[in-house]
């Protein structure tokens, strides 16, 4: 069960209506078409969509309506009414096509008109078999067309973007896609063009419009991809298109709906835990769709959730274990690989039972932020029980002890905190180190849903297009100085006044970990303003890893590893004595391995190029590395033993979304690939320990047996003063600017590999600077950015109005902008920026 049932709304004002003779009570203001659904009567429709405002364009849902006049007598409307735009009223009597000849005739007439210009290409159309037009023309239409003239034709398909294709002749002008773009996503990139029978959906295409000399303006011009339909949510238009007019390049002509097996699941791409449907055929994923989940993602998912699934079945997919022999990785059997891994780890952990154990320096474990809660639990238990260390950290991103204390004190083990619904209802939302559109996926759509009813403030170096779409107010901040800004939000400031509104929320992103005193300042602001705090990390596994205790200082359930009581409680469950001492965080583990302070590494889903620390150098130095991976990566290439693990579609488990909601999913495609927790269980057995993480059920049973952490077992909230200097100064000089960076939703992350159509919708990498900074450093055209090491990055500069001075923003992992790898720097560091001619 991946979807969560919508709670029955509390109804106060009910009206009684009769639909086809069935009397029912519905909430006042309900549209006739919805009321009919409630009594099980389906009225055909195209333009109607429950999440979009009524438009009444297709006219398919005409029904006969009568309602009581002032004298109480029933008075029929003179002509059929569109049930998708007409709200019910007390005593209303509705006759649908089932009981009214007039309504049936009206619907058949509209259906015939809809079909006169619609091509009969159903046999080759992607939508054939799941097409509302096809289905409804079968159920409510005429058997044969009386139209004998020439149908309107268009050149086809028209590429709205590299991913979204439009076959205009199939379009029935329901405007669902344009309404979605305007009302939900806020992208003004497609709209109606021309009129009458030549009316069509399109981008601002001069060839179509038949005139030149004009360009898109305003929101439509804000298109950094160079594509007209640049949206992170464009795939939803394909799903809600009631005909085959909008198709995706990835799925077009690949399959028939009735050949597909559909499995419900949870997206692995962000911390929202969006419900998805995976459609597959003979073990191969053909497409993914949004599943309807009213409390989480509603009807929508991001394009990344939808289109980025090819990564798991690339040619470099690992299917057999690998062991390094004579310097080369060779395929071996599972027993051999487990034996080799066990031997290496035992030696490093000092449990081999030999004299060398005394010199063993231990093992560090890096699960990565993308695994399920069960996997993360297995990793940390493996570290603590089998390897006897707290050197385990799932945070392979910017992280800090302050963050860990904050998460331990406020987030881990607290269950469901701020929810999507609360976020939507919040009168004010302050975003700190968090870009909803880039880093939050459907969080952005929830915030946008409240546009006009909610004030949004964003502590950021500039107002992004995403923030602009939320009508957000910028609270300008140089990266690293956010804490000072937050401390300065006091009673006189606009943002603080707004946050005082009951139900307001401070959303804090994972990037705040890079800000000295950042989490302390967030907690302080929350105390002062009484606003709730929501921590929204980027990766799907972050919250689960936190709950599972896959952080060096946190045991499962938010228990402080330094607390004797907590260790005792967990130790009792595990049947061991939980080790004493302080664990290293991910950066610490990598640094330790690089200088031989740690002998071995166990690495899960970690992409070396995501880290500004040099993981590959650390692996090279370390005596032994075990990698658990889905595909060959630079990490597996450098490891000594590689154990293949299952990608999300081939396993079951639980992602814990940022709300704290458990998002369990079952296996979509059964294969013999094993999940990380099972592989670790086997490895532990090989090392003589029963980890009891062989199945999702056993892990969950163990987690369930843990009581809620007692207050004394939780870490204290952090108290770190705000950074006094602007920067973690590394580079200085006139060309030095403070780096601001974060991941774009669509970029070159490894989970988007193998999907060029999606990649084409990503935004072009640019370097942003403020006008005065650009003037001061004479930055025009292409600029060259150098950081702490390795290469420089050459990017076109974009002068951004209202941006904080002395800052340069670049995307973190977009084409030609791999910040961690090329600059070895992170947000708040200084980098050198030079004009290309300099």
């Amino acid at each position, binding site marked *: 069960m991946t979807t969560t049932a919508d709670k029955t709304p509390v109804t106060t004002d009910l009206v009684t209506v009769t639909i086809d003779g069935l009397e029912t009570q519905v909430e006042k203001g309900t549209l006739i078409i919805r009321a009919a659904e409630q009594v099980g009567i389906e009225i055909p429709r195209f333009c109607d969509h429950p999440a979009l405002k009524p438009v009444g*364009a297709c006219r398919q849902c005409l029904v006969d309506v009568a309602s009581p006049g002032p004298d109480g007598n029933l008075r029929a409307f003179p002509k059929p009414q569109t049930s998708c735009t007409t709200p019910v009223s007390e005593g209303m009597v509705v006759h649908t096509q089932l009981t009214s000849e007039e309504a049936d005739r009206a619907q058949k007439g509209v259906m015939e008109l809809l079909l006169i210009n619609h091509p009969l290409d159903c046999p080759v159309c992607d939508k054939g078999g799941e097409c509302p037009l096809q289905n409804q023309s079968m159920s409510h239409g005429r058997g044969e067309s009386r139209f004998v003239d020439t149908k309107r034709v268009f050149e086809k398909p028209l590429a709205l973007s590299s991913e979204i294709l439009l076959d205009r002749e199939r379009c029935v*002008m329901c405007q669902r896609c344009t309404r979605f773009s305007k009302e939900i996503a806020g992208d003004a990139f497609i709209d109606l063009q021309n009129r*009458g029978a*030549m009316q069509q959906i399109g981008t601002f295409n001069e060839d179509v419009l038949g005139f030149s000399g004009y360009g898109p303006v305003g929101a439509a011009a804000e298109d950094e991809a160079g594509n007209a339909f640049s949206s992170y949510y464009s795939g939803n238009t394909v799903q809600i298109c009631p005909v085959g007019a909008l198709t995706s390049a990835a799925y077009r002509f690949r399959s028939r709906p009735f050949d597909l097996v559909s499995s419900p699941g949870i997206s692995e791409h962000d911390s929202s835990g969006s419900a998805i449907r995976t459609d597959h055929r003979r073990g191969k994923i053909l497409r993914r769709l949004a599943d309807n989940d009213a409390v989480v993602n509603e009807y929508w998912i991001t394009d990344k959730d939808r289109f980025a699934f090819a990564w798991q079945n690339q040619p470099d997919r690992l299917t057999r274990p690998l062991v390094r022999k004579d310097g080369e990785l060779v395929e071996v059997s599972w027993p051999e690989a487990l034996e080799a891994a066990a031997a290496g780890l035992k030696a490093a952990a000092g449990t081999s039972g030999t004299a060398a154990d005394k010199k063993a320096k231990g093992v560090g474990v890096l699960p990565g932020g993308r695994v399920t809660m069960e996997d993360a639990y297995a990793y940390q238990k493996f570290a603590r029980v089998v390897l006897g260390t707290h050197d385990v950290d799932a945070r392979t991103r910017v992280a800090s002890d302050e963050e860990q204390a904050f998460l331990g004190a406020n987030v881990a083990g607290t269950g469901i905190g701020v929810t999507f619904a609360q976020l939507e209802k919040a009168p004010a939302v302050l975003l700190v180190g968090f870009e909803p559109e880039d880093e939050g996926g459907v969080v952005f759509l929830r915030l946008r849903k409240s546009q006009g009813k909610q004030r949004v403030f964003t502590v950021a170096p500039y107002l992004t297009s995403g923030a602009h779409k939320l009508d957000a107010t910028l609270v300008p901040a140089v990266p690293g100085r956010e804490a000072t800004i937050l401390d300065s939000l006091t009673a006189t400031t606009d943002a603080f006044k707004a946050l005082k509104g009951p139900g307001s929320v401070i959303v804090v992103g994972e990037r705040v970990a890079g800000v000295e005193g950042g989490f302390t300042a967030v907690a302080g602001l929350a105390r002062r303003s009484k606003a709730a705090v929501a921590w929204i990390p980027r990766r799907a596994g972050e919250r689960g890893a936190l709950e599972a205790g896959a952080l060096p200082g946190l045991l499962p359930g938010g228990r402080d590893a330094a607390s004797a009581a907590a260790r005792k409680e967990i130790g009792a469950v595990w049947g061991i004595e939980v080790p004493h001492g302080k664990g290293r965080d991910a950066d610490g583990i990598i640094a330790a391995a690089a200088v031989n302070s740690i002998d071995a590494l166990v690495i899960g889903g970690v992409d070396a190029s995501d880290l500004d620390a040099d993981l590959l150098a650390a692996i090279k130095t370390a005596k032994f590395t075990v990698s658990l991976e889905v595909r060959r990566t630079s990490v597996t290439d450098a490891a000594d033993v590689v154990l293949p693990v299952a990608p999300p579609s081939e396993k079951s488990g639980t992602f814990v979304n940022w709300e704290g909601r458990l998002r369990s999913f079952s296996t979509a495609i059964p294969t013999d690939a094993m999940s990380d927790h099972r592989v670790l269980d086997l490895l532990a057995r090989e090392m003589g320990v029963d980890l009891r993480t062989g199945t999702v059920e056993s892990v969950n049973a163990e987690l369930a047996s843990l009581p809620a952490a007692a207050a004394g077992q939780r870490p204290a909230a952090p108290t770190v003063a705000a950074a006094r200097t602007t920067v973690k100064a590394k580079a200085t000089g006139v060309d030095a600017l403070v780096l601001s960076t974060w991941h774009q939703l669509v970029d070159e992350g490894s989970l988007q590999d193998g999907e060029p159509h999606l990649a084409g919708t990503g935004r072009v990498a640019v370097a942003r600077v403020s006008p005065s900074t650009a003037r001061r450093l004479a930055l025009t055209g292409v600029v060259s950015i150098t950081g702490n090491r390795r290469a420089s990055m050459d990017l076109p500069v974009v002068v951004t109005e209202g941006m904080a001075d002395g800052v340069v923003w670049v995307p973190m992992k977009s084409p030609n902008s791999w910040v961690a790898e090329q600059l070895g720097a992170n947000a708040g560091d200084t980098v050198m920026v030079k004009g290309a001619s300099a």
Partner: protein
Amino acid sequence: MTELTPVLSATWGLERSWNFDTYCANGGYEGAAKAMKMAPGDIIQAVKDSGLRGRGGAGFPTGMKWGFLPADDGGPRYLVVNADESEPGTCKDIPTMMNAPHTLIEGVVITSFAIGCHHAFIYVRGEVVHVLRRVMKAVEEAYDNGWLGKNIQGTGFDLEVTVHSGAGAYICGEETALLDSLEGLRGQPRLKPPFPAVAGLYARPTVVNNVESIASVPPIIAKGVEWFTSMGTEKSKGMGFFSLSGHVKRPGQYEAPLGITLRELLEMAGGMREGHELKFWTPGGSSTPIFTKDHLDVPLDYESVGAAGSMLGTRALQIFDETTCIVRAVERWTEFYKHESCGKCTPCREGTYWLELILRRLEAGQGTRADIQQLLDTCDSILGRAFCALGDGAVSPVASSVKLFREEYERHVDEAGCPFDHAKSALFAYSTSADSLTGARSLTSAEEAHA
């Protein structure tokens, strides 16, 4: 015999009738001066009492429309004048604005004062640039002479007027599409409710009135309600323009009391063109069901025309004699509706496309008897199903012509061609060989794209 009653057109014959001075020398702005000494509520009541009905076609009582505005909440409210006159055959607002633009501006001043509006808009059809220029000049004159702007005539009343040019879409004459267009959006009709009186321009209470309706307000105020109600019939009070065009000797605007008959009007216009007789006519523009010579004595007021099966509409009387092919005339009108359908709703967008294709084939002699029935069936799928009134208007000429002239449609089928000599119906030198529209050839996609 009904007499002509030139009121709005009284000064049209004067030298430079459009000038502020000419207008004032002939009683101009007297109504406004009088109105601004009245209580706004009294002005609304006077217009209600006058029985003035919307002259834009629908005939909704003007005073009642004003009365729908919610109570003043301190925020802005707007008057929008619909000067997007585009209906085939309709030509009354454009001559009014050309010859006496100040009648409109004076009406705008009085109406704005009555409804508490401080910013009025005049939305002029985009194609008539000469009219746009003249109205803008007149507005400028009104500003210069203290009839617009701050503290009008020392009364403390402020009014700004913005003249806005449309971009060439018939649909923008539909009031809600007009409002969207005025706001800078794509001109397509809005979902109602909310009605413009509640949430119109910029979501504020708005009155949308036709040029002739607004221009009729000054004389009502200046000359009194009784003077106005002395003209017309019981439920259709006052005077109005009757625009005669087509096969008449003297086409033009005839301002007469409502209830006049075409027989009377034809007499004033010198009758049909020499040697010909009336075949069919439209009482209120091309979107009203057609009449024939049987309807010569129908009083041209809202009720009588309605009772006879058509609508008074905009009183655009297009007159056709016996040389005119009904199929061809209807095809031309339908072409217009197809071209002007905004595309929002299925019935109008697809239905007009289909009707036009069938009519083109019938006129070219390539139709069948089943096509004639198909015309009626398609009309049935449009009428009452479309989003706005444009769809209903588009089927009027088709459905009414098949009803009245079915045998002529059948002749086109049976004789496999049009039985008329089109040159005979033309009022100018005309060659059928140049008449590509009656050819059987389909338009190429490029032509279609620009059609």
